[in-house]
């Protein structure tokens, strides 16, 4: 099999990693929190999509239109979840040591996973999107349609977030809070609300990615951890707080993983990813695009 196929496979799925990582990068850069429950936002978003389809059709099959419609629903619902999480729990430890926030978010991640299992069982779920033919053949490469759509969707979500940060008032407020909370407060920005909004947005994008993941792969109560871990790698690569960095990082990680699987063996993909993480931290901890929002740490 040609190496281009591996790279394409990797890019397609890498965009989704990127969309997840973007939110992670944002929280870290703006609120200075490493959110170990981030993967659970992906999982919850996926379940929102699944149950929406189930509610509307009684099955797990959906037309493309319906499936895509569940994405904004997931985004909205998970936004609320993220906002609430920050406001009620995480904000209590924001000013404390970093590893206290790690512990709190870890505790949250456990609870969310377990509650999800309690509520929906551990069975994996998936949304089957109906197509006449499920994949395309382009230049000898096999490209599944849904993956392509998810790829585009992930890029759209990421771009939307980036535009929001750059162009809107709330976005500027977020960046202001990231750079200097006290000054932002003096200027009249509601810092707490801004932080919670950031958290909400970050979770929302992850939730949207989760909806797409449910359509091309599946959703399961304990799927979150691996996305959190991959987000680490991506964010370290791209730079904390940097949206373009996370995007490129995600695409690159996906490509590296699939190429490793194709050329060497899939059993080494994770070992390779984590080793890259360590190397990156040593070689260039501030990432490709440097700290876009805050100083290091």
């Amino acid at each position: 099999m040609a190496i281009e196929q591996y790279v394409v496979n990797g890019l397609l799925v890498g965009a989704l990693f990127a969309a997840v990582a973007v939110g992670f990068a944002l929280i870290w850069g703006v609120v200075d929190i490493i959110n170990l429950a981030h993967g659970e936002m992906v999982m919850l978003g996926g379940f929102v999509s699944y149950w929406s389809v189930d509610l509307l059709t009684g099955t797990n099959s959906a037309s493309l239109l319906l499936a895509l419609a569940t994405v904004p629903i997931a985004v909205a619902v998970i936004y609320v979840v993220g906002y609430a999480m920050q406001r009620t729990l995480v904000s209590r430890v924001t000013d404390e040591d970093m590893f206290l926030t790690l512990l709190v978010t870890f505790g949250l991640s456990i609870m969310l996973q377990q509650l999800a299992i309690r509520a929906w069982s551990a069975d994996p779920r998936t949304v089957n999107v109906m197509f006449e033919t499920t994949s395309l053949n382009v230049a000898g490469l096999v490209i599944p349609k849904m993956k392509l759509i998810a790829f585009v969707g992930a890029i759209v979500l990421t771009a939307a977030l980036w535009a929001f940060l750059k162009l809107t008032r709330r976005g500027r407020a977020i960046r202001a809070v990231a750079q200097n909370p006290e000054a932002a407060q003096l200027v009249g920005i509601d810092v707490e609300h801004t932080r919670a909004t950031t958290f909400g947005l970050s979770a929302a994008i992850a939730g949207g990615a989760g909806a797409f993941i449910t359509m091309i792969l599946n959703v399961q109560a304990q799927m979150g951890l691996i996305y959190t871990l991959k987000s680490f790698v991506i964010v370290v690569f791209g730079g904390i707080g940097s949206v373009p960095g996370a995007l490129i990082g995600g695409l690159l990680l996906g490509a590296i993983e699939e190429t490793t699987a194709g050329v060497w063996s899939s059993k080494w993909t994770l070992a390779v990813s984590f080793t890259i993480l360590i190397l990156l931290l040593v070689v260039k901890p501030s990432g490709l695009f440097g700290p876009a929002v805050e100083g290091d740490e």
Partner: protein
Amino acid sequence: MSTTNDTGADIVDGILDAAASVYRFFEGRGLQTLAVFTIVSAIIPLTNPSGFEMTVITELFLFGVLALSWDLIGGQTGYPSFGNMAFFGIGAYTTAILVKSFGIAFPLAFVVAAALAVAFAAFIGIIVLRLRGGYFAIATLGVLLASQQITRNLDVTGGASGIILLQTPTAQEFYYLFLAILVLEAIVVMYLAQTRFGLVLNAIRDDEGKATAMGYNTTYYKTAAWMLAALFTGVAGGAWSLFNTFVDPITAYNTAWNVEIIAMALLGGSGTVVGPILGAFGLHGLIRMVIDTYFTGWQLVVLGAVVITTVIAMPKGIVGTIEEHASAMEYYKHGGQAAADSSDADVADPGDGTVDDSGGDSP
């Protein structure tokens, strides 16, 4: 101190006062307390407890070692490692492989396992100890995960199935083994905390830039602490692999345990000798005695909630909070103004909480 307060707050106050008095009694009597603890613990097996009780207490010692080791690099030096369990796993696998495939006797296997863990720490330390704070945490997490994955893929480690050992020492021998490791480590940490070594570590935690500016070779101290933590964690891992008769990648390179030991150190009070041990005994005891029995099916949820609640309500951990309270009261008793919120080092008391030289705890 209190203006218009409900009885609830007064009760808490009262409890803290009592605890503070207890604390002050033990302060400065570290070695004696440790001696008493050792004697009491040594006697327990002679009273013929059940195998279950022996297992649980042995586990308490194990977690005490792990939490204390973590605290050495995390709480004392300020480098929160999410990858300490990598040393545990290396110790566990080395011992298991040596004992099973090469028929090497346990004591020798331990020594080799410890040496390997320390060597690994030195090697990894060159890479990760350059990083600070969150970066360091993630790097160590990466080390742990990479180790887990690699072990899972290799044949010599038994791959995903791990290694099984059926001929192992008795439960009583394990009990004393873990007790010995814990007491030994406690003595070492207690001693170091009082020497310049410990003070430099704390200085690194409080402000590494300043410590370097003062002329200390912080790299040396950091690496030493890191290797020391690896030593005890590795030995604990080796002992555990035999104790458990079974090692596999997920339990030996246990990411959940890594977070648990951090929680234990923090909940107990990091930066002290007794804090992590107390936290380990408390949290693990709570899990085994209460949560497993009464909350069957809800263990993890309750654990998560306990972690969240304690972190939010008592960020300094139990011992830390008590220390703070004790110091605050001292100051107050000297006729000063009502003690303001002492967020860190207290003004009146130079030798206070951050470098703890008391070792009081109760089995």
